[in-house]
């Protein structure tokens, strides 16, 4: 017997939510004025990148229900095209990245037209295959892409904007840019969710055939979702390339990139706006600490000769993939609706307890 429950989605504008969002964004913007340690800035940039990736994936995976586990294809295209335009054609990245986004959207149209006729797990497998084909092609056609050698960037040209000079040296400028991008992505996501597009995407996710019979052109809307998703993912890719300054086929197109993107979206709560934020806040610190435990020393959390640091360095270096694997298993088995889902269940359980207690008088 199905249980009647209220829809968790608020209708229209939630002033509180928007206020909170703006306040947080503001706080994050002024944060570097107080704490500007490179490790913290680095963590911040990676956090924003993860948020962008998760929000982007959500459009096609969470709302439209098309689980792509090959989003690295767009991330990598974003990274490589931006990088190649800079290194080979000397085009500054803030123009080049738009070219990269265009390329990714074009690619998504091709991939979408091929793979969207597949359903469920077959679509998942196809998306994985496409990303792998691109990775292997990038690896192999080294005359064009430098193959396994990858691209190494030495410096980024200065941006001259409205008379001001923005120098991309160090991590702080990337922090601000990353924050702005993350805010923009969240806003775009919110706009999609509260538009005809959002409703149609969700209808497709819930029941494709029913949606089709209600006037929804399936392949058109699936491709729109994918295009939006690909654009933002490519943006993240180009941004990442400029920040880390080194890319190779595995970094750009690897399966673990795709898995991480999906993880970010599902850990927090798939198909929600705050989900990827939570997911990023769980995944990024974990993987960064495992990759570079010394950073914790830098920010004063741990002492230099702490056993934790040496333990991680000796036994757990690059164990972030292992952690991802464990997280995936835990989330799928115990919290497929993510952290938000757990919270909702707890709140609903709490509400039922309160209602029950109120309904029946206390025993004498």
């Amino acid at each position, binding site marked *: 017997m199905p249980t009647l429950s209220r829809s968790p989605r608020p209708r229209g504008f939630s002033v509180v939510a928007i206020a909170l969002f703006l306040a947080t964004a503001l706080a994050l913007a002024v944060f570097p004025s107080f704490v500007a340690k490179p490790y913290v800035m680095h963590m911040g940039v990676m956090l924003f990148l993860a948020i962008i990736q998760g929000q982007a994936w959500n459009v096609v995976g969470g709302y439209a229900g098309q*689980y792509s*586990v090959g989003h690295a294809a767009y991330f990598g295209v974003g990274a490589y095209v931006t990088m190649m335009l800079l290194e080979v054609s000397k085009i500054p990245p803030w123009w080049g990245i738009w070219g990269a986004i265009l390329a990714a959207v074009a690619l998504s149209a091709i991939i979408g037209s*091929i*793979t969207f*006729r*597949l*359903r*469920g*797990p*077959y679509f*998942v*497998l*196809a998306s994985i*295959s*496409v990303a*792998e*084909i691109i990775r*292997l*092609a990038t*690896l*192999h056609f080294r005359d064009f892409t430098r193959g396994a050698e990858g691209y190494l960037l030495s410096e980024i040209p200065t941006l001259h904007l409205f008379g001001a000079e923005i120098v991309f040296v160090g991590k702080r400028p990337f922090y601000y840019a990353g924050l702005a991008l993350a805010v923009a992505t969240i806003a775009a996501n919110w706009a999609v969710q509260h538009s005809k597009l959002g409703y149609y995407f969700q209808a497709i996710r819930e029941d494709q055939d029913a949606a089709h019979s209600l006037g929804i052109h399936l392949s058109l809307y699936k491709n729109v979702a994918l295009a939006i998703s690909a654009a933002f993912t490519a943006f993240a890719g180009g941004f990442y390339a400029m920040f880390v300054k080194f890319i190779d086929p595995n970094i750009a197109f690897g*399966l*673990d990139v795709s*898995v991480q993107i*999906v993880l970010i979206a*599902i850990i927090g709560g798939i198909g929600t706006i705050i989900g990827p934020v939570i997911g990023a806040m769980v995944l990024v610190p974990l993987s960064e600490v495992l990759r570079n435990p010394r950073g914790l020393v830098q920010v004063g959390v741990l002492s230099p000769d702490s056993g934790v640091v040496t333990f991680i360095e000796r*036994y*757990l270096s*690059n*164990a972030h*993939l*292992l952690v*991802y*694997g*464990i*997280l*995936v*298993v835990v989330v*799928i*088995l115990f919290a*497929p609706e993510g952290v938000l889902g757990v919270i909702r269940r707890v709140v609903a359980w709490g509400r039922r307890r309160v209602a029950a207690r109120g309904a029946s008088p206390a025993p004498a």
Partner: protein
Amino acid sequence: MTVFLQQVGLFLQYSLSGLLQGGVYALIGIGLTIIFGVMRVINFAHGDLLMLGMYATWLIFTKTGLDPYVALLATVPLLFLWGAFLQKVFINRVLNALPQNQILLTIGLGLIMSNSMMLIFTSDYRILTTSYSSSSFDLLGLSVSQPLLYSFLVTAAITAALFWFLQRTDTGQAIRATAQDRDAAQLMGINVRGTSILSFGIGSALAGAAGALIAPTYYIYPQVGSAFTLKAFVIVVLGGMGSIVGATLGGLIIGVTESLAAAYVASGLKELVVYVLFLGLLLFKPSGLLGKSRA
């Protein structure tokens, strides 16, 4: 004329090696198709099970000197138990979940397996060299790698045993019944839970056996599984999801295709060719040559 004969000879050579290699691929494919047939789960960790088989064989060899083919007596039951454990503890819980979640779960398990091995054994390539690792037979003028031939013979034996098991024994028939119609099988009193555990165990054992068989001729490292997972999928889709005969045929076809691609296209592109073939199959012939599809 002699050049032409030479070319034909080379072609036959490549095809033969591919065919023998394909035998082992068939083993991997059969394991995956049994798992899919019985549980409708797409096991993305299949290649990592094979990797575990490789490491187990290597460990036994380095510690005891036991020949890999003899060590099969130990590695197969080991992988069987491991597979049964995975099914009982993890896979069983998602049998009714969204297929996407099932795939994600197996991807997660695969990541855990491959990265745990990396932490324990590091990413260093290991090699298992037996006395006959680089020897070859002469078969009608064609050179046949010894380990490859042995693997093929063992594979044939295992496949024959498997066929016998599935056709002639009660348990085997129970597995086939569950694969055909899970609900009907349950209504007829078949222990569907047990059959699932058994099937995952068998699937894992076959993957492990394949790993053991190729250990003398492949580099052994934690990430080696992913290439084989992909191959297993191509084989299974080619032969038809759930069809054991199809997986056998598919394995042989893929083995030959890969061998010819490596020889005539470019060695670096052979994996790419397989992926493109896979994509093409998914799009145009998802039910494969012989299968029951649910595309």
